[in-house]
């Protein structure tokens, strides 16, 4: 019997080894798998490469991981935020390496990894600093930059409901990078607000089919407040 349900975050994150590449879902606070990240900090894995849209907000989640000195490199599109103080301090101290990737290229490169593509040609970034030194090609009169897939050992994502086969649905804009990160990582761990019986999720509405997911962890999660407008 397939049962991908894992009882707690601490058990789930044992899959993360020192030096691992770890994708972490979330856009700002929406979809950030904070409880999995807390467990990862407790687990103690270090020398990590983190792939995520942001480099942490406030003092929880990725921000805490950076504060604890566990992150060697971060691959992201938007590290600088009003409340990214832990990343800012680490970056200014030269304690963290940054690979800055336009947001759509980040998504496309993650998706390419999950889809088994060797590379993509993207128009985004052509002629800019972020394409310096990269191979380019003109196709049908438009200029493209060659970009390579981003793979990961583990993905930590937050979904809304999941079942023991790993099928997932998400909630509102917390979906963001979850589906593509689940595809791109060798081992995808989803924290979910509720584990439901197999068959309870409408197959027409499953967003991430269980084939892309290796572990489902029930977490009674409270939403983290965003920034005041």
């Amino acid at each position, binding site marked *: 019997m397939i049962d991908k349900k894992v009882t707690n975050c601490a058990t789930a994150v044992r899959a993360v080894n020192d030096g691992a590449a770890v994708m972490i879902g979330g856009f700002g606070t929406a979809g950030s798998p904070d409880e999995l990240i807390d467990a990862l900090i407790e687990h103690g894995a270090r020398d990590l490469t983190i792939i995520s849209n942001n480099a942490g907000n406030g003092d929880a989640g990725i921000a805490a991981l950076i504060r604890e000195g566990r992150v060697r490199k971060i691959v992201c599109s938007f590290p600088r935020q009003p409340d990214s103080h832990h*990343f800012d301090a680490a970056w200014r101290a030269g304690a963290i390496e940054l690979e800055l990737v336009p947001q759509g290229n980040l*998504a496309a490169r993650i998706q390419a990894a999950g889809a088994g593509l060797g590379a993509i040609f993207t128009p985004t970034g052509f002629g800019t600093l972020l394409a310096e030194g990269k191979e380019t090609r003109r196709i049908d009169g438009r200029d493209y930059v060659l970009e390579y897939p981003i793979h990961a050992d583990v993905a930590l994502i937050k979904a809304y409901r999941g079942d023991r086969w790993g099928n997932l649905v998400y909630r509102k804009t917390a979906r*963001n990078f979850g589906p593509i990160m689940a595809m791109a990582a060798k081992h995808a761990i989803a924290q979910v607000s509720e584990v439901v019986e197999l068959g309870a999720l409408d197959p027409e509405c499953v967003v991430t089919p269980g084939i892309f997911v290796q572990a489902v962890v029930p977490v009674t999660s409270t939403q983290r407040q965003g920034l005041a407008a």
Partner: protein
Amino acid sequence: MNDLPRLTRQQLAARVAQDIPEGAYVNLGIGLPTLIANYLPPEKDVILQSENGLIGMGPAPAPGEEDWELINAGKQAVTLRTGGAFFHHADSFAMMRGGHIDICVLGAFQVSVTGDLANWHTGEPDAIPAVGGAMDLAIGAKRTFVMMDLLTRSGESKLVEHCTYPLTGIGCVSRLYSDLAVIDLSPAGARVVELAPGVTIDDLRRVTGVTLGEG
């Protein structure tokens, strides 16, 4: 120079909104362009997309009604209109890069007369760079507009012959909406479409120092 009559930010937002047609799929960039949403009449079906994964974005919720899993690209709480939808990031950027978004309105540090855009990085060595979706938006939408004050606070023109800040995209901006004029940009250069009330073409040439066509 600074005594030129300028449109207020609200007037400028209303002016951009006039040019957004019924049925358009639109992405409004973070900052000044978000004001445009206030001037899109509810009876005109304009569909707003936000790159973090929603289309059919509605206004901010009442205080206390925020759902922090329903946010916009600026990470502010928003609402979803009836008929709206959620999707993941790869689909979101396919909407842009694939040319499905009709109009994108962005802020800018500098725009060149041929439509080059600089809006992500000041180039200062100690500045932490952050690009987000700016480069995808700039080159992806069918039409990219810039909305900005034409001059910096110290009076320098942000419309330039060549951008000196790091580029976001090349030749991607087709129209500039500013507090002093509306200006079309193309490989042939800048052409003034409309002057703010009380501003003359000579004023504009004097404060920008760039070559400006008319009519």
